[in-house]
């Protein structure tokens, strides 16, 4: 004989609803409007915020690189060089600094940046001489390739 009234007295009730709701609301506390208080509105907003932050992690890299390039362009124009010339002739002189570091140098180490710009300009002029000089001028000093083994 099965006792059917026992399961009806012992109901299974949700006892930690408060904490489940707080798990979502804690990420929404700095939002604007009712979605920082009301669970129903917060769920969607928090979900969209998480999705946007995952996508933004990829875009942050692109954005920062563009920012560095803008800053290097501004700094190299102050020294009379355009960005493509600066970067290409710096690479041709075998100086392999990345854009993040060059932008930091342009902000915090202006003398070092000026020397980098002078190096790029000098290598550029040597390149022009080599291309247009009909082979009579001596080879440029900064155009020599250094090899480490």
């Amino acid at each position, binding site marked *: 004989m099965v006792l059917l009234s026992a399961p009806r007295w012992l109901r299974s009730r949700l006892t930690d609803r408060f904490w489940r709701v707080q798990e979502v609301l804690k990420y929404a506390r700095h939002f604007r409007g009712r979605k920082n208080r009301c669970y129903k509105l917060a769920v969607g907003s928090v979900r969209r915020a*998480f*999705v946007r932050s995952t996508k933004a992690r990829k875009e942050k890299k692109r954005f920062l690189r563009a920012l560095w390039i803008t800053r290097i362009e501004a700094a190299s124009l102050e020294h*009379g060089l355009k960005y493509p010339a600066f970067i290409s002739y710096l690479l041709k002189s075998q*100086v392999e*600094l990345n854009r993040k*570091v060059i932008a*930091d140098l342009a902000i915090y180490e202006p003398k070092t940046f000026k020397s980098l710009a002078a*190096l790029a300009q000098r290598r550029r*002029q040597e390149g022009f001489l080599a291309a247009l000089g009909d082979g009579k001028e001596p080879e440029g000093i900064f155009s020599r390739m250094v090899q480490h083994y």
Partner: protein
Amino acid sequence: CLIVLVCPHQASTLLSFVFWHQSSQSTSPQQGLVAKISLTSSLWPEVKHPDPVEEAKYHPEVVQKVNQLIASGHYRSLFAVVHFTSKQWKITSEDLIVMDNALEAECGDRIWMGKVLLVGADDFTLMGRPLLGKDLVHVEATVIEKTKSWPQISMHFWSRHNYQRKKIIVKPSDCPTDKQHIDFPLFV
């Protein structure tokens, strides 16, 4: 023959194009006597780099001067650009770096950073092509902390498709390695 471009910045691209198409004869912009307006010269001061031939005479002097400065220790603080964990860092002494990975060193171990790209002080800079020699510069750091990163949330959601995935990513982060020492070990 060295062709010197003394043209305004905005028109320089046009004029340079014209110059390179002519035969290798140096021409100067004497034909068009343009009146001076606010845009004739560039908006920032013109920078003139020194003549290469003259400069070559000063090269050994400059190298000697820099050597003397380094040997006598006439620098207040050095900064270095170091290639470490596939990134480039600009570091000075008593600097903190946080990296997004685990190093094999324990807390308190000293690390020697071998790939130095650039070293500079107030008066001089040494640029490596692309790296500086290990007998030239010595950069050391101490591992301070080995922790995990803050819990990053990776969430994917497609609306109207009943699809959502949420993942919490915790990476090991060898939190700060304190860069304590940049030095010139051997200097002749």
